[in-house]
């Protein structure tokens, strides 16, 4: 790639080892190419991932050994053509070393396992997988023979690292509260096979913020978490507080949505008023021109009739004053409504551009949520919904509604919390209501929750259920070409209930690896 910044030329990029053990893309910047100066061309600066790593003196700074000038220019031209044609592909194919996971077993959706397969990753993505895939030359191989590879799990309801973060407005994003440097919690989550989360904001009830989607991959600048979307849904919590507080919360949310509707009317009125104002301005400008013409004519008449009575002069002065006052009374500019970012987000919800995630567990709260959905015709995800079996008919009548369930922990104590019917999922399936599962907490419990759920559903394996979470989006689902997140398990997660993740690879980087036996369990 040729970069023409600061009068220097980037001649080529290459994947090299800088000596620290890290492979990285290096761009070498040269002084302006001049055929006459080519033999004296010096390495000016080495860049790695956009950061200057070494200056000329550090990287040697010596004279390059140039090729014959004609041949050099020919090679440069060919490189330019290739790079400009398909920059990403060329970089991935020519300059990125492939990462090969050798000898893994890959469970498939049909229950069969592709044994002794190779998974080849380039640029962080799987480009080939299967028993017939051969490792390319110069590839970086990781021997993981005997491990089982699946895609990473997606937790659709996570509060990872949000322990002490509270938000209470539509403008708040869960991503803002995510602590990307809380490596302990994030690594524990990765150790449970979860690589992608939907981060749910937490707050005192009502409108608490927006749900973010992120991958738990490592960041170049340190920490973990790569944002995918900050606007997955607007989160409304109707579950917090005493029954009276919950009723107040419902009224508050309803009021906010109504005021958003009113705001839309105000904005519409302002727009039409503004158009009228512009028309009036045009008319006023025309009138002004006409009046000016008239004044000129009158001045000409005055020159002809030099002698006029003083009374007429007084009348004239009065007329001028009237005209001036008319000018001041011209079209009045309408007042622009004050900017309200929270209301604008609520308008996106009302326009179905942003779904709403309503947390409601008890039947009374679910009924409130249903009323909101019906009144404002919302596209909604009901989170929790433990007592959904009590309002099943009302739920079935709604369109654009799905349930995000969390596996409850049944208690022996009566009144300890909402109770879920063990046959709820079967009932939801009968009514055609879509559902998904989330951990509702730190994500470490997701795999166990799904295992527990598969036991309740008497399904043969929890793995299809686990990989179905979030598979509607561009990520998730079974391991396939283009996937960026791979989890390597010590046993077959489709069959072995005690199978544990051994390594997690995101974007071609091993972000977590189970410590060796002696260190296991230590901090």
């Amino acid at each position, binding site marked *: 790639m040729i970069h023409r910044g600061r009068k220097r030329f980037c001649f080529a990029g290459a994947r090299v080892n800088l000596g620290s053990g890290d492979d990285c893309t290096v761009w070498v910047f040269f002084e302006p190419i001049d055929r006459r100066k080519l033999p004296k061309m010096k390495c000016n600066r080495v860049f790695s991932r956009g950061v200057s790593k070494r200056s000329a003196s550090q990287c040697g700074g010596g004279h390059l050994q140039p090729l014959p000038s004609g041949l050099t220019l020919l090679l440069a031209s060919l490189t330019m053509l290739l790079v400009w044609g398909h920059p990403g592909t060329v970089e991935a194919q020519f300059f990125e070393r492939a990462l090969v996971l050798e000898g893994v077993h890959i469970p498939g959706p049909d229950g069969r396992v592709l044994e002794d397969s190779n998974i080849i990753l380039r640029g962080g993505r799987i480009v080939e997988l299967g028993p017939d895939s051969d490792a390319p030359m110069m590839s970086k191989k990781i021997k993981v023979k005997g491990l089982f590879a699946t895609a990473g799990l997606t937790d659709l309801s996570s509060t990872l690292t949000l322990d002490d973060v509270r938000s209470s407005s539509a403008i708040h994003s869960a991503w803002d509260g995510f602590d990307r440097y809380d490596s302990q919690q994030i690594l524990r989550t990765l150790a449970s096979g979860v690589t992608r989360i939907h981060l749910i904001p937490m707050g005192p009830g009502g409108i608490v913020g927006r749900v973010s989607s992120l991958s738990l991959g490592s960041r170049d600048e340190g920490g973990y978490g790569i944002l995918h979307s900050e606007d997955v849904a607007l989160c409304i919590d109707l579950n917090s507080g005493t029954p009276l507080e919950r009723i107040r919360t419902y009224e508050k949310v309803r009021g906010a949505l109504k005021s958003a509707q009113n705001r839309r009317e105000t904005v519409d009125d302002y727009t039409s008023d503004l158009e009228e104002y512009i028309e009036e301005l045009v008319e006023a400008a025309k009138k002004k021109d006409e009046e000016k013409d008239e004044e000129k004519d009158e001045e000409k008449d005055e020159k002809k009739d030099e002698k006029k009575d003083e009374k007429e002069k007084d009348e004239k002065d009065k007329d001028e004053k009237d005209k001036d006052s008319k000018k001041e009374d011209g079209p009045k500019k309408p007042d622009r409504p004050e900017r309200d970012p929270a209301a604008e987000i609520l308008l996106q919800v009302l326009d179905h551009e942003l779904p709403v995630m309503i947390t409601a567990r*008890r039947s009374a709260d679910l009924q409130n949520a249903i009323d909101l959905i019906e009144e404002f015709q919302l596209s909604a995800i009901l989170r929790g919904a433990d007592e959904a079996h009590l309002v099943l008919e009302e739920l079935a009548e709604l369109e654009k509604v799905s349930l995000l369930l969390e596996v409850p*922990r049944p*208690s022996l*104590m*009566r009144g300890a919390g909402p*109770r879920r019917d063990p046959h709820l999922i079967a009932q939801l399936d009968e009514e055609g209501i879509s559902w998904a599962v989330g*951990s509702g907490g730190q994500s470490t419990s997701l795999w166990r929750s799904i295992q527990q759920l598969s036991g309740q559903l008497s399904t043969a394996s929890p793995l299809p259920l686990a990989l179905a979470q979030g598979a509607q989006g561009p990520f998730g689902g079974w391991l396939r070409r283009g996937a960026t997140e791979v989890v390597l398990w010590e046993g077959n997660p489709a069959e072995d209930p005690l199978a544990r993740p051994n390594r997690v690879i995101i974007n071609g980087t091993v972000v977590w690896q189970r410590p060796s036996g002696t260190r296991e*369990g230590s*901090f």
Partner: protein
Amino acid sequence: MKSGNRWWLMILTGSIGWCTTVEGSESSVVIRPVAVVAPDGSICEQMAVVIHSDGTIAAVIPADQADPALTTVHAAAGSVLTPGLHDLFGALGCGQDALLAGTVLFDSQLDAAAAFDPTTGALDQAARHGVLYTTVAAVPSGIRNGSSATFLCKSAATAHTVAAGRPMYALADSVLQSSREPTSRSAMVSLWKDYIVEGAGKNRDPGILFCPDAIDFRQSLSLRWKSLPVLVHQGDARSPVERLAGKGALMVVGPFLENGNPAAVATAVRAARTGTELAFRGGLPAAPANHLRGSAAIAVAAGLDGDAARRALFSNPARVVVGEGIGVIEPGARADLVLFSADPIDPAARVLQVWRGGQQMGMKTNGSIRELGGIR
């Protein structure tokens, strides 16, 4: 079958002759073919368990050697038969404040059994979730806190004791009170030393020692024990559990809850790697009903061996309370059994059937447990 369990099967097959005579009893029931959790925590496939009419286990034999004339309970494919789960030091069967002790520092008269109410319906509810034993003990507010008491989880007019009480001790902050000695940790440790070397604690059952924090644990190990007590330890990263290596220690840990303290889980795993046997502490009725199996699943995910986790669920709690004939499936033991749909440490496993003293308990439809809905 796992290779490590061949010895167990050999003992069983060796006793076939004895078993067949027992099988001849018409009132016996046989559960087969079923996988059985062995005392060492492993799972033996294709077994049959013969229950005698007196409520004890008559024999554990390979499924094909069971007498077909006996009343047979056919276990579902993949199901696993286990001893009953054991809720250690919870409050199952007791009122909220019933387990509070007085202010006496060395209270050997206190009996936790006095706080137990066998008529509570929570006992039957717990049994439906596979929890068949409950051990209760007073809140550790003195150095000696009376004795523990262990009961069968069965709602009835009278309590059914399944193990003798063990002395309960504490070396923890909960002992320190401003109203009486000791008021400082050093004084408490000094009292402990006197008690063990010269006092009433000499040559007695070391009992069960409540030492929840790392400092309690460290100071407990510094005492001159003739034989190490059962340690009830919550654990954190500073707990010197490596010092238990080679001592044949038994440690009560947990309960581990989802999104709970990961340091406690890591400490338990570290202890297990030194050869310490674990038992999971209970938390009923406040904790989730399946908290014991949940603790096991969390510990396994953190690195605990599957067999060790099963021992911590079944046989080791019985060792903690020195219960005779509970926590194991072997001839002569109580027939308190739970049939799970899968390995009990698999979160997907459900309780299919429960036997208490050989009597099958009424279960809900298809083995699933419908939660009781409160009036709201």
